[in-house]
């Protein structure tokens, strides 16, 4: 049986990982002992669900591509698959079985059919999280590029988790691996982090992959669970500086106005650009120009022209229009003083 040899390989590679601290001889003995047990278990389970496994193995890709059509098939597979995978998990590696036990709950199996795998390994959690994960994992399993583009890393990682699930549940490491390669390459082209997390996992071995998957899920779980919230948060954060800037602009009205408006020259006092109104504003006969905001501030303080140090005439603004003979400048000056006041 091919699957047996494969599972034995996977288990043998699993056990040294678990007993990192012990010496090799002990490991080997324990390995062989466990191997036999596990082999028997696995053989029984896989013989029971062999058809399903093979179906699933074959369907992994088509399922991904045309998921909605084959959803029913898949759900059946999952339902059949689930018990076998779990027993294996329990017997072989404990942390996985721990994390998977909540998925035993019939609700997750029935409610989120597509996401059972993912919710099983990823989430010990609530039905809401499992449902959300199921939706996301459905997206990534389907490998639809649009979803991938939208979801980015998360979607990709879910996909990786799905692959890890397949590994853990099927105990058929090579098949999912060989599948996952093209799958990932096709999907993960868009997102490099996926391949980065995926690559080392494959390189180290299947036994490491599974714990790693759980580790990954642990690391990503908050993100996944909070994903709907965190996305708006991000946009909020992005919008925050903008709103701040706007607020700031509102606070220092004349400044911000000057800043925004293009102008030929800048005010010698505040160095802000002079807008059209400012540049047509001549508060002193010496010809020293400045922006209306600074002019107002100077009037509030000592009221002397920075250019000639003579006191500004209070009626200088009113005098200007008569000098120029135009009512336009007068009106402009008026309107600007209103701006400065506001």
């Amino acid at each position, binding site marked *: 049986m091919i699957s047996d040899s494969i599972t034995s390989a996977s288990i043998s590679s699993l056990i040294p990982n678990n007993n990192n601290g012990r010496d090799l001889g002990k490991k080997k003995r324990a390995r062989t002992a466990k191997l036999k047990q596990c082999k028997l278990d696995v053989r029984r389970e896989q013989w029971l669900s062999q058809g399903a496994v093979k179906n699933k193995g074959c369907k992994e890709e088509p399922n991904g591509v045309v998921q909605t059509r084959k959803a029913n098939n898949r759900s059946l597979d999952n339902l059949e698959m689930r018990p076998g995978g779990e027993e294996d998990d329990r017997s072989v590696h404990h942390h996985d079985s721990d994390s998977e036990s909540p998925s035993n709950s019939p609700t997750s199996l029935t409610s989120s059919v597509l996401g059972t795998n993912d919710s099983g390994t990823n989430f010990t959690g609530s039905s809401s999280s499992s449902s959300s994960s199921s939706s996301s994992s459905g997206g990534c399993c389907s490998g639809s590029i649009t979803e991938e583009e939208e979801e980015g890393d998360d979607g990709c990682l879910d996909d990786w988790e799905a692959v890890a699930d397949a590994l853990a549940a099927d105990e058929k490491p090579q098949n999912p691996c060989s599948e996952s390669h093209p799958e990932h390459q096709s999907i993960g082209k868009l997102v490099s982090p996926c391949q980065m997390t995926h690559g080392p996992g494959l390189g180290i071995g299947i036994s490491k992959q599974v714990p790693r998957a759980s580790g990954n899920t642990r690391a990503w779980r908050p993100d996944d669970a909070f994903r709907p919230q965190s996305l708006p948060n991000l946009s909020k954060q992005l919008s925050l500086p903008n709103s701040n800037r706007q607020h700031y602009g509102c606070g220092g009205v004349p*400044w911000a106005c000057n800043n925004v408006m293009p102008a030929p020259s800048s005010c010698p006092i*505040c160095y802000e650009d002079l807008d059209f109104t400012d540049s047509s504003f001549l508060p002193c006969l010496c010809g*020293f120009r400045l922006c209306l905001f600074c002019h107002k501030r100077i009037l509030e303080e000592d009221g002397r022209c920075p250019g000639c140090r003579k006191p500004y005439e209070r009626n200088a603004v009113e005098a200007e229009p008569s000098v120029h003979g135009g009512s336009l400048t007068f009106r402009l000056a008026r309107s600007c003083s209103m701006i400065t006041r506001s």
Partner: protein
Amino acid sequence: MQASRARLFKEYKEVQREKVADPDIQLACDDTNIFKWTALIKGPSETPYEGGVFQLAFAVPEQYPLQPPQVRFLTKIFHPNVHFKTGEICLDILKNAWSPAWTLQSVCRAIIALMAHPEPDSPLNCDSGNLLRSGDIRGFHSMARMYTRLAAMPKKG
């Protein structure tokens, strides 16, 4: 507050841009406080301060540029208009003749000009003022030169 800060930022940018323009003045802003500046100015030629490098400390008020910055010499200098101990500068543009159109850079230029043209009639350093007012130009020069060498010139060896 905001206005002074914005203006100082602009001045800082201007200083960075025109660093080479005036080789006699090196203006630098405090790393953490934009209201604290220091400047290094070279003593003007054909004066007893020639060859010396004098450090100035600027304390910019929040009302700047409507209010003048407070400037003082950190380097000892023998000058009728500079307090010998505190480094306080008696300069009209730093007091009532201040104009918001002035900048820190132009203040530095004004101080260099004041070093070249002391005003003994409004002295902060009475000894120096008295020497000049009594016409002892040589005495003043030797005193100023001595302090320049002592305080403002890099020591050899």
